[in-house]
């Protein structure tokens, strides 16, 4: 069992990474227009998203 202890910090680091990523997407406003995001993926024009830091 103790041989596998190195897995614990790895899993914690991965989990923390996920948490930080989620908090970043939250701050970045990616959950502010969920309906719109679902529609926008269907647009034909594939223009790069203009820099938009929050509505």
């Amino acid at each position, binding site marked *: 069992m*103790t041989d596998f202890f190195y897995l614990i910090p790895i899993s*914690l680091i991965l989990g*923390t990474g*996920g948490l930080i990523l989620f*908090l970043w997407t939250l701050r970045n406003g990616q959950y*502010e227009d969920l309906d*719109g995001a679902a*529609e*926008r993926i*269907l647009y034909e024009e594939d223009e790069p998203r203009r820099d938009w830091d929050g509505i």
Partner: protein
Amino acid sequence: MSCCVPPPVFAEAIAGPQRVGPAADEILLSSREVDKGVRQTDLSVPSIHCGACVQAIEKAFGALDRVESARVNLSTKRVAVRWKGEAPPPLFATLARLGYEAHLYETGDDGKDPALGALVRALAVAAFASMNIMMLSGSVWSGADAATRDVLHWICAGLTLPTLLYSGRVFYVSAWKALRHGRANMDVPITVGVFLAFALSVYDTIHSGTEVYYDATVSLLFFLLIGRTLDHVMRERARTAVKGLARLAPRGALVEQADGTREYLPLREIGPGMRILLAAGERVPVDATILSGSSDVDRSLVTGESAPAPMEAGARLEAGTLNLTGPLTIRAEAGERESTLAELLRLMEAASGGRSRYRRIADRVAGVYAPVVHLAALVTFLGWMAVNGDVHNAVTIAIAVLIITCPCALGLAVPMVQVVAARRLFDVGIMVKDGSALERLAEIDCVVFDKTGTLTTGQPQLANAEAISAETLALAGGLAVHSRHPHARSIALATGDTIAVAFTNMREVPGAGIEGVLNGAQYRLGRADWALTRPAGTTGTVFARDGDLLAHFDIRDALRAGAREAIQVLMAGDMPLEIVSGDEAVSVDAVGDALGIANRSAGVMPGGKSARLAALSASGRRPLMVGDGLNDAPALAAAYVSMAPGSAADIGRNAADLVFLRDNLDAVPQAIAIAREASRLVRQNLVLALVYNAVALPVATIGLINPFLAAVAMSASSVVVVLNALRLGWSFPGRSSHTALLPAEATA
């Protein structure tokens, strides 16, 4: 997927030559500077409903000069436009051309909700911690040796402490507030349980014990936070959606200074005695007297009268009335705070009836439940002390009781259902202010309607278009299109968009009608006694050539779409109905007869309306008030629960518990049906949660539950409650517009 064509025709777009939307000054006033030289204007466009709308609007705005960027938010139905320069680009005209009606969205706050952000962050941290602790606890319970177990326990403790401090704040603060006021709410046992469990677990970890409660405490916080967040999301969404609708009072007015210069001043700077220039189509900003000019004034939102009244110099205007036909110079008689609105606000405060006395189901359950949990834990502790006198053992079991009975599923039982119900209502265009409104709506036993703007559209419509020859109608439409008078608009709307009649010498006579010359003949459209030289035995609105009658227009305030069906559904559900209107008896009787509502009263003042609602409440009834006007606002506040259409005066919308955004009156029976089903599911959920506790409590009391089982059982019961809530709406196939009321016994 629905689509956007044909664009809705609305009155603003028909009255072609006139300005569309608020004045440039008002747009400038409400915009905010986001960057050097770049301003942002937020518009609320309630009719955005699909991806094609998003694309059309963003493209049209992108093509405008000086527009930096435009982004549509489909969820909130708002557009954020960034533009450069001194004057705003023609935003409203562009939207009108596409067929969208827009309103300026309040600035001041930037649309972010700090409380929600804090809740979601707390939830995310709790989710992370509970996942990892569960994983580690899993290995402990699958049989780790003593040394490994202690290491894992220490890691769990390290994860739990910051989570408790960060994610649990919302509960500690609420529990502390309740305790300070000498009350006990659900958060008190949560806080006590969480801290005792953590303290005991740390003690056991230090002494290399086998049973620790890290997993249970953290997953408890996680599930409870889900409930809190959902509750918050629901209230916030409705609030912002309603906030984005049209304001009744403009943000400012064009003031003429003593030296003759004109300046656009924000509303709060306008004081008594100022001279204000009021163009046709603008709302009166504050209570005022007309100095010069004459016009027709639409007072329907303020008094409930459906017909516009002609007004001349010397007449008093209430704030919020709409100047229709002629420019006016008015003198402010009061500031913003002292206007008619203030009087209504006072009435509303005095009236707030049913809702202040109402205690939410969750609070009522908590009031009983919290003392029971504390008592059970205490009795368990004393009982085990008496049995074997082992303090550690007694405390462990008492904490197990506290944790297992912690109202995890109970905390989810109500908000989960209400969030699902609010989502269903949102899909059919109905906003709910909060969960308590849903609970109250399920309990109503009679419905009181306002007439103008609620049962009717508040927009007059031409009733006899078929009886008039197309040629005459087109001529009349050619004149009517140049007027803002609601009767003229109804004629213009009836003629469609083939209007290309070139009248000359066109002139609008406020209070009378509009006239013009074509091929040497003079045409008049307006009141019979003005347009006709020889009395033709007709009153109302006529169209005349050189004083001879060409056509008589039968213009009525049409019933709101779906009014008949909605009333039928309500009557089929044995719901007593009543009309209380500020309009004159003739029009009230016409609407009452058309809908089959016998119980009606006309000419009721705002105070009288709220008195009627108060009388109903006093006699033990639970009335639902549906109304839109300023004059309804006190009654909306006095009712047990209230609904207003999205077209209502903003003060009325704020007073109402529910706001329906689509024109169809079907919203009323639909909302009641969904509220009743939600109420049934809430009760089922409470029973499910309590049954789980009733089973778990005795097992925990005799000390047979271990912490891991407690955590698993707690999660399982929460999931069951959530799944049950998701059943809401299954019995409404395809969200049809005709929904029968559920039997009332479901709410008993």
